[in-house]
């Protein structure tokens, strides 16, 4: 401030910033990317530690004995499931009741906006069954949830079996201080969504459900099981939830601690931990793990049933059994003990999990990067936008030698300036609104006129509107205010730069990964674009750096990181399905990525596109 109040020194600083603007921007960009990639390097990260005292020092013994019985229950469940051809509600109610739980059911129905082709569903009707184990001498104020989905086909039977086995074992223990809810839900996430909305008596997604009859107070934590085989080689922890929300880091620590204690192999993003951090392979491995987490988080999807709990401030994680060709196998008893231990420690909690981090990235299960470490990477990228904006501001402020002679000249750019800025802003946002609403609205019309299915119709309409947005007559300001001026595009670019900076900043605060990925592609485009660059070449570059293409790259990168690379055609199909899933996630669970991209990011990018074609 002292510097700025001195006109001379202010002039010096601004001249330095404008003179060195481009080199500084380049350095910032490279530094941002380098910083981000450095986060996966082990010496730069922190080791995880248990922050919650109630879980750290209290020892629990795991004594769950009846893994075999749980598997027998699983087989029985599978037989009943096959017989009924869906969820065996009556059998579940009977079994849970026999175990001494209070059993309730909830039926729900949901019409999808368009058919979900990957899961082959359109009109969903189902029933959730849940049993509440009432803690002795507890006043029904707190609860824990253990859930297992009843999946179609032959999958996930063991999870339900283990859940019932645990219920039986837990029922005969006296140390419970919180009620435990055992939830078996149908139609995976839709069922969980219906149950959670019923439990909290809200309706945010237009779900139809019957009200719940039994409740157990505020839910403190939830664990979701997915288990497809009698034995597993490792357990995978899934943390990424709706809109990139993550559970408290202590939940991950708890899982890791019990895996260590019981000698169970544990993974995150399906990747085992390596000890050789100082080799290139070791670094690549942890970078891959972290990038996978970033991509999953950026997608804003719930990557397991736990993802929907996070909205309700319930710390939750999914634990997925993996059975590969490894020699060493873990049986159901050990998995049961793992859950017993985790639930007992959660039962010991006095407060909600709040001590540890909520914003973090994990390059491995024992290492984490907290918000204080990863935010600078993003900060460096947004600095570029601010520097460019400053540069433009300075240029706009210094009067050009031409305008010195006349007084009217100085004012002329400002009055048409407002209109010439407003028009493209409004038009591009209208395009965004069209992109957001039309695909779902116009699917019937599209199906009538073209030989495509509903899902394809929605996705192709979205892509069509996206592309049509590029061809819109953006130079409408000329109709209103005549020829576009040099001042005009500068003002527009200034506005667009600040808009993008605010947009990305807010996004990164909520979902760092999404903000960062968007910043990586959008910032160079935003920083470089002017009307005076070669049109064709820059247009191609702009399109390649647009939000839609960013999704396409992410799809390929994700497949690459998961070690299932795809060909271009497969990748394209995946891209289409990702778009339809994104729209569905928004409609079904209230994921915000699709509206964010359609209503804000895409119009913002269109503004820069507009500047490129400024005349």
């Amino acid at each position, binding site marked *: *401030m*002292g510097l*700025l*109040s001195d006109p001379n020194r202010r002039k010096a600083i601004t001249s330095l910033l404008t003179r060195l603007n481009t080199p500084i921007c380049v350095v910032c960009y490279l530094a941002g990317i380098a910083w981000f990639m450095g986060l996966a390097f082990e010496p730069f990260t922190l080791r995880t530690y248990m922050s919650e005292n109630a879980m750290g020092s209290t020892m629990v013994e795991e004594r769950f004995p009846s893994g075999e019985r749980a598997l027998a229950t699983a087989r029985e469940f599978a037989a009943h499931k096959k017989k009924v051809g869906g969820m065996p509600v009556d059998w579940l109610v009977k079994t849970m009741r026999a175990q*001494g739980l*209070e059993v309730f059911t909830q039926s729900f129905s949901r019409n999808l906006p368009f058919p979900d082709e990957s899961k082959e569903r359109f009109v969903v009707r189902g029933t959730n069954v849940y049993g509440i184990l*009432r803690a*002795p*001498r*507890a*006043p*029904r*104020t*707190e609860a824990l949830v253990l859930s297992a989905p009843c999946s179609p086909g032959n999958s996930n039977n063991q999870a339900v079996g283990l859940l019932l086995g645990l219920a039986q074992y837990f*029922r*005969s*223990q*006296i140390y419970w201080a919180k009620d435990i809810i055992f939830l078996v839900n149908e139609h995976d996430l839709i069922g969980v969504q219906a149950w959670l909305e019923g439990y*909290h*008596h*809200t309706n945010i997604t237009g779900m139809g459900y019957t009200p719940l009859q039994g*409740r157990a*107070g*505020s839910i403190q934590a939830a664990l979701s099981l997915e288990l497809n085989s009698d034995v597993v080689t490792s357990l995978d922890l899934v943390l990424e939830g709706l809109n990139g929300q993550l559970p408290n880091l202590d939940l991950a620590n708890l899982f890791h601690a019990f895996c260590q204690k019981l000698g169970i192999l544990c993974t995150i993003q399906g990747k085992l931990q390596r000890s050789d951090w100082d080799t290139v392979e070791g670094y690549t491995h942890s970078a891959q793990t972290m990038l996978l987490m970033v991509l999953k988080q950026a997608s804003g999807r719930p990557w397991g049933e736990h993802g929907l709990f996070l*909205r*309700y*401030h319930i710390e939750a994680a999914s634990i997925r059994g993996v059975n590969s060709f490894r020699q060493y196998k873990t049986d159901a008893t050990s998995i049961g003990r793992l859950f017993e231990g985790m639930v007992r420690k959660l039962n010991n909690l*006095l*407060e*909600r999990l*709040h001590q540890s981090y909520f914003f973090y990235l994990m390059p491995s299960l024992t290492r984490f990067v907290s918000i204080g470490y990863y935010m600078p990477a993003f900060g460096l990228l947004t600095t570029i936008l601010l520097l460019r904006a400053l540069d433009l501001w300075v240029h706009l402020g210094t009067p050009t030698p031409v305008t010195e002679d006349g007084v009217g000249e100085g004012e002329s750019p400002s009055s048409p300036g407002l209109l010439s800025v407003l028009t493209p802003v409004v038009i591009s946002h209208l395009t965004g609104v069209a992109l957001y609403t039309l695909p779902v609205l116009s699917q019937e019309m599209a199906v009538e006129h073209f030989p495509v299915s509903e899902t394809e119709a929605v996705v192709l309409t979205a892509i069509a509107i996206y592309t049509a947005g590029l061809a819109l007559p953006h130079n409408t300001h000329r109709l209103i205010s005549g020829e576009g001026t040099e001042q005009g595009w500068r003002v527009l670019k200034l506005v667009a730069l600040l808009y993008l900076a605010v947009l990305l900043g807010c996004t990164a605060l909520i979902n760092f990964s999404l903000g960062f990925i968007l910043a990586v592609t959008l910032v160079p485009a935003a920083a470089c674009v002017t009307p005076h660059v070669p049109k064709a070449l820059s247009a191609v570059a702009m399109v390649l750096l647009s939000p839609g293409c960013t999704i396409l790259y992410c799809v390929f990168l994700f497949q690459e990181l998961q070690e299932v690379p795809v060909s271009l055609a497969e990748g394209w199909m995946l891209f289409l399905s990702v778009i339809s899933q994104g729209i569905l996630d928004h409609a079904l669970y209230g994921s915000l990525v699709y509206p964010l991209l359609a209503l804000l990011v895409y119009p913002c990018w269109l503004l820069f596109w507009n500047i490129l074609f400024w005349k």
Partner: protein
Amino acid sequence: MATRHLFIELQTLNRRAKLKIIFAKFQCLCIIPALVGVDKKTCIQFCLCTFQEEMVIRPLYSGDIYASFQFRTQWDTDFLHDGKKVSHYRLFPKSLGQVLSKFSVRELHISFTQGYWRTMQWGQPFIPSPPGAELWVWFHHTVTDVDGNWKELTNVLSGIFCASLNFIDSTNTVEPSASFKPLGLGNATDHRFLRYATLPREIVCTENLTPWKKLLPCGSKAGLAVLMKSEKLFHSSFHSQAVHIRPVCKDWQCTSTAWELRQTLNVVFDLYTSGQGKKEWSLFKMFSRTLTEACPLASSSKIYVDVTDNPGGELFDLSPSSPLISTAVVLGDRRTYSVYDLTKKETFGQLRSLNLLLRWKGENDMLRPPLHAERYVSGFGLQKGEIHTCLYNSHPYRAYPVLLLDSLPWYLRLYVHTLTVTSKTRENKPSYIHYQPSKDRLRPHLLEMLVQLPPHSVTEVTVQFERALLKWTEYTPDPNHGFYIGSSVISALVPSIVAMDTNSTRDRPLFSSFFPTKEESSYFMRVYTEPLLVNLPTPDFSMPYNVICLTCTVVAVGYGSFYNLLTRTFQVDEPSAPLAKRLANIIRRLRGVPLL
């Protein structure tokens, strides 16, 4: 009458306690007033006291066992009248008597409960109580400073019962206008003399049980109280202990009043966790003790076992069986009980100990209780929420009114305009609403309303609230646990299936005579909902240091510079003249010619 009783009792006396009892009884009947050196009139005042003890065992349909103890001490004196000083206490605990007279208490009800009564599985309890501690007191109408008395009383009781009753202050005390009528004699209606408070967070444990047991005439040395081993009582699904003091009729003519002290203890044992899967129960399994004698000071000592649903013995086996069967009308239903009279020697049989054994054989479905309620908070996020209270009337064809009492702390800012009452999707307008808004940090919200429940229906009462941001010192040490909101209280006159017994003076089992019955067609019932745990917006308490540092920096740098910028006057300064010019000017000034 009394003499005849005495003779029978004398005959059946347990030999070991003989001497002590003879002295006690004689003293009580004032046969030897001269011996103790008091005149006859005073003697009658302090002497006429009786003690009864009783236990009811009700096998529940869920397979659990409900055991309810009631101890009743009646004392025919009146220490509220014209400043008479009562100093001789015999069966009545002195600690309580002194409290009653010092604070001019007319009626006192205090309960400590650990756990929630599961109405849907267990039916109705004999005496309901909310989780945590509950205290309600009617003061005598001569009291001038009710709030002062109340504050002192809670602190004294806190000491007597080893409980945190001292946390009762004006922020959780209300004066219900209709829900809590006196249960004893006298129809006081001025609720200025009533105070009601709950502490839903209170944890009940042995430290509360011990002082409670000490109030009994026999302590836990003899009688039914020997069963109260805390390691068993707290190894259960539900535990509730209470003390009720009220004025009652001295005799059937009701010419004068007497003080009644009822101590009740309700406990529900869990079949699964303690029974190791076997559906078998005995006194020994429940309490790790058997009974060998009645309390020698008790005029009656009985065990009732509910056998209503077991007329032919198809549901469970009960051994030893008792020839005595009694029926009583309890909670709107006629129930049959096997009675074991502990004052009779033959009850204990050959082994001289009574160990009731109950073996389950069949399973049965329970009738839904006529009234139950549940409550929950809906919504998510830390800004707003909605409290839902659902009242279920399961009566197939009768509608009846209920009184709903809600006392909510001030930090839930109620939006009273959002209060809705709906039954069967239609609005159900309460015929009476009493609402007292809260004052921040001073008093809670009080909401009372009279709602008619249509037959076989669910009535939902909803009200929205906003969560207040507390001052940082007002948070509890574990703020992320949440804040407890006490149970709502639902009081109702429920239509009875059988004619209720309105004759209050008839000799009835204690468990059926607590709530006074005014008419035959209905009975009084009180239901408590579960307490709520509500999270308030909580700051990160490790942050203040960071915040202080950050704020100071911002203030120093930002404010300082801004202030500097705003107050500084900018002017273009002349470049200072060179030295030669200045020297020339000095010379010119000396010469008196214009400066350069």
